[in-house]
Each structure stands twice: as structure tokens, then as C-alpha cells.
């Protein structure tokens, strides 16, 4: 029933201790959740620190794939993908597309011929408000199996220890197939001739509710003319941007979007492992690039090509990379949008 009102000094002290414990315990739990008590936690910030060159990041720019150029166009969906996913973007139709050709480097001033990995960021927006964002690269497999492995790769690549990469490669045998591609695959002289691969596995859900594990690629319609890196080094440091700008002026460029469906048991969690060639591959549509715009004032500048922005009917799989990329891209986006003054627009005023 009722407690006597005449609290003794001891019980008051006990009450204050209890209150203190509740407050301090809650604050400690909050600090733990925020990672402040876990210096070993791999945070998006740590990943960005590892990505930054020794001279520091290029302020106002993406922390990786920092050099790029915007494009706009359309995605012509042929409707074949509707059997795999109920996403409206795969229903037959023509939807606005916005994207960015880019180079896998934290340096926005890098000479084009020095960067092995090229990428494409893409956002397709069907009229119902859904969105499909993806960011793909020209490598056929990814370099490492896990985000932690990627962090170790960045540390090794940035290390002053001449043996660091050797030690890394021994600890990460999965790196070998990417390494072989980087060393031996022919280069191209144009973004238009590059094939871009999503590499990560996603789950498509069709109209009946059935799930399909998939990966997707963009196959260039342009004729591929293999060249060597030495050929490219003779060109202007910005030849890729100049070339694609010229090329689109003389007509739109096309890539076929293909979706490859895994067989049961195919590795979905590991983007270093390609699926066998005979897997069912569906051509779902065509990306048509109609216009090129510089990044500083272009429509792709302030778009984060977050690979977890997916329409209903698509979702992430057990592949750990899309989540890690989303988290790190978000941090990069927070930083670079706050640093906009360090990357001035050339046209005054907000863009339309």
C-alpha cells in the first residue's frame, strides 16, 4: 500500500544513486550503440579515411570514383524483366535515366589513362515515384569478398610497406581473379565501349511472390576497339570525358541491360565469384544516353548512386556490399555536400 512520506536520509541517498545509475547506464548504452566505446568497429568514416590519398580527400567531391561526368537519357524497358521482378521500372515503357560515367579513383584530377576501374552510376525513375539506383564497374568480378577485406585492400594499397600488397594478396586469395583482370584485360578508349557490371547480387520478387537471385550488367552497343594502356597514356588526361561528349553529339549511345539469374547454390554473398556462363540471362531493356553534362553544374552532382535505393520488387541479398556501400556513400555524400564551396559551380545560382 502506501509508503510513509517520512523518507530517511538514507533512502533519499539511495534514490539519487538509483537515478544516477539509470541515467549513466542509459548514456553508456547510447555511447556503445554509437560506437564510441568500440574503436575497432569498421565505421563508414574509417572506410573513407582509408580511401583518402595521403594528401587528404578532394573536398566537395565523391570520396571514391571522384572523377566523373553526368549524362541524361532514357531507359527503354522491353518488359522481359517483369517475369523476374514486379518493379514498375521493368514493366515495358520508357523511363527517365540520369547517370554518371566515372573513374575509380579518389582523385578528381587523375589522368584517365591511369585508372583501371571505370564505373557508371545510374538512376532510373518510373513515373510512379519508385526509383532504381545502381552503381556498376567495368571489372567482371569484385576485388574482395567482404567490406572488411576492401578496407584491408585500401590500407595495403596505401601502405608505405613495399610488401603490403603481397601480404594482402596472400591473405586474400580471392583477389587473384580481379588482379588478373586488372593486369591482362584490354582497355578501351571510350566509356561507350565499356561493359559495366553490377557485381553484387540482389533479390528480385516477381508478381507471384517468387524470389530470384540476380546480378545485372550493361553491355555496350558500340563496337569495342581494344587498346593498350600505353596507347591511352598518349592521349589528353581527360580524353574519356572529351570523347564521350563528342560521341553523344553525333547520336545517342546505347547499352543493353541484362539480368542474370542464379541457379540454386550459386554464390550470392561473394562478388569475387562469377556465376557460370550458362546461367539464364534476360535482356530487360536498353539504356539510351542522350546528353552529356559536366559534373560541376550537372544533374548527377548531388545524386548519391546508393545501390540500396531499389523499387519494390527488388531488394538486397546476403551480399554484404550494397549495405556497406550505402553506408559509406551516405557519409561521403554528407561530407561533400557540406563542402560544396570547395567545388564551385561554374554557373551562378541554384540549378533548375
Amino acid at each position: 500500500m502506501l509508503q510513509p512520506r517520512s523518507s530517511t536520509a538514507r533512502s533519499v541517498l539511495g534514490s539519487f544513486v538509483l537515478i544516477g545509475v539509470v541515467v549513466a547506464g542509459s548514456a553508456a548504452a547510447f555511447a556503445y550503440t554509437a560506437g564510441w566505446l568500440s574503436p575497432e568497429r569498421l565505421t563508414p568514416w574509417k572506410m573513407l579515411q582509408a580511401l583518402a590519398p595521403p594528401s587528404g580527400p578532394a573536398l566537395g567531391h565523391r570520396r571514391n570514383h571522384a572523377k566523373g561526368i553526368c549524362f541524361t537519357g532514357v531507359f527503354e524497358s522491353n518488359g522481359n524483366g517483369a517475369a523476374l521482378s514486379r518493379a514498375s521500372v521493368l514493366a515495358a515503357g520508357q523511363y527517365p535515366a540520369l547517370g554518371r560515367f566515372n573513374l575509380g579513383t579518389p582523385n578528381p584530377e587523375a589522368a584517365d589513362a591511369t585508372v583501371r576501374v571505370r564505373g557508371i552510376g545510374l538512376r532510373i525513375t518510373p513515373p510512379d515515384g519508385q526509383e532504381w539506383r545502381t552503381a556498376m564497374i567495368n571489372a567482371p568480378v569484385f576485388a574482395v569478398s567482404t567490406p572488411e577485406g576492401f578496407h584491408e585492400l585500401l590500407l595495403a594499397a596505401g601502405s608505405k610497406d613495399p610488401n603490403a600488397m603481397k601480404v594482402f594478396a596472400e591473405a586474400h586469395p580471392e583477389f587473384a581473379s580481379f588482379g588478373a583482370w586488372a593486369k591482362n584485360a584490354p582497355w578501351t578508349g571510350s566509356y561507350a565501349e565499356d561493359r559495366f557490371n553490377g557485381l553484387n547480387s540482389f533479390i528480385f520478387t516477381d508478381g507471384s511472390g517468387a524470389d530470384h537471385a540476380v546480378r545485372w550488367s550493361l553491355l555496350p552497343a558500340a563496337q569495342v576497339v581494344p587498346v593498350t594502356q600505353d596507347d591511352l597514356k598518349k592521349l589528353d588526361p581527360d580524353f574519356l570525358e572529351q570523347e564521350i561528349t563528342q560521341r553523344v553529339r553525333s547520336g545517342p549511345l546505347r547499352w543493353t541491360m541484362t539480368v542474370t539469374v542464379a541457379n540454386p547454390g550459386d554464390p550470392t554473398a561473394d562478388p569475387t565469384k562469377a556465376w557460370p556462363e550458362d546461367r539464364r540471362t534476360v535482356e530487360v531493356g536498353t539504356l539510351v544516353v542522350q546528353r552529356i553534362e559536366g559534373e560541376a553544374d550537372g544533374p548527377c552532382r548531388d545524386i548519391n548512386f546508393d545501390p540500396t535505393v531499389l523499387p519494390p520488387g527488388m531488394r538486397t541479398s546476403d551480399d554484404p556490399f550494397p549495405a556497406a556501400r550505402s553506408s559509406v556513400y551516405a557519409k561521403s555524400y554528407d561530407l561533400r555536400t557540406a563542402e560544396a564551396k570547395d567545388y564551385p559551380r561554374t554557373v551562378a545560382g541554384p540549378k533548375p
Partner: protein
Amino acid sequence: MNAIRHHFSPLQRLLHWVMAICILAMLFIGVGMVSTIMPKYVPLVAIHKTLGTAILVLALIRLVTRFYYGAPALPADLPEPMKLAAELSHYALYALMIGMPLLGWAMLSASAYPVELYGGIYLPAILPQSDSVRTLLWNAHYYLAFAFFALILMHAAAALFHALVRHDGVFEAMAPVPIRDEVTRVEYTAAE
């Protein structure tokens, strides 16, 4: 004596405790998600957006119930500074309950992110894309989250102070279930 209300209405108490759980979960999810690159990042962000929208709706309902039912008066013998602190902190809590979800929603809008909730529900953008506006909103959302958590800790400490030290019925007014009968309490206090 019976005519004086010493408790918040059952609907207000239900809203208070449901929202207490939601808001604490929200703050922990918020600081947790921005510090991880693990696969849980994706569901945490989705929950954060969905729960934030739910909190906004609940906070607006709660504001209406507050205007409709009012609040029991604070004890007459409560020192003036404590009364003032109680009053101001409740204004701040209401402002944050309503303001934080709006800041988050506006921040996503100004970032040109689709605002997608669980169940494939898309909220419309409430601001045009802008790097400077989104930076302002991001900072507000981030720093106010810590202020919100600090305020909740003070709120909880004050509630326990009323319950354990002052025994003045303030905690009981919002207790999840009636702890003691208000008439008995009044008589008991009067008889003391």
C-alpha cells in the same frame, strides 16, 4: 476533491509510453546505423524512416489530446525553478517529437533521396534538392538527436525524482497503470 484530475487520461498515458519506446528505439537506431557498414545498416535505415513517420503521426495525435484533455497541475509546493524546468522541457520535448521527423523527411527530400517506408510506401518530397539546405538539415537532425537524448535522460531523472524522492504524485500522473488511487492519495496528503 474527486473532481481534481491527478492523472493524464488513459489515452495520453498509452501514447506517452508507446512513444517513449519508439523514440528511444529511434535514437539508438539513429546513432547505431550511422556508425556501421554491416548488412543491418539497410533494415535499420528503413526502420528509422518508417518509425520516424509513425512518431510524427503519434506526436500530432498526442498534441491534440494534450489540448483536449490538458494536463494535471503540478504540485503546489513544487519550487518555481522546477516548475519552469518542467514546463520548458515539455515544450522542448513536443518540439523535438514533431520537429525531428520533419527534419529527417526534409533532409532526405533536399538530398533527392526517395523517402521510402516499409511496405513500399513513398512519401512525397517536401523540399527541392539543395546541397546547402540538406547540410543545414543534416546538422540540425544530428545535433538535435543528442539534445533529444539528453532531454529524455533529464526527463527520466526528474520522473524518478518525483517518484522516489518527492512522492508528490507527478510520476503517478503518467504511470503506465494507475499506481495508487488518486482519492486516497489526496486524503492521505490532506491528513498528514
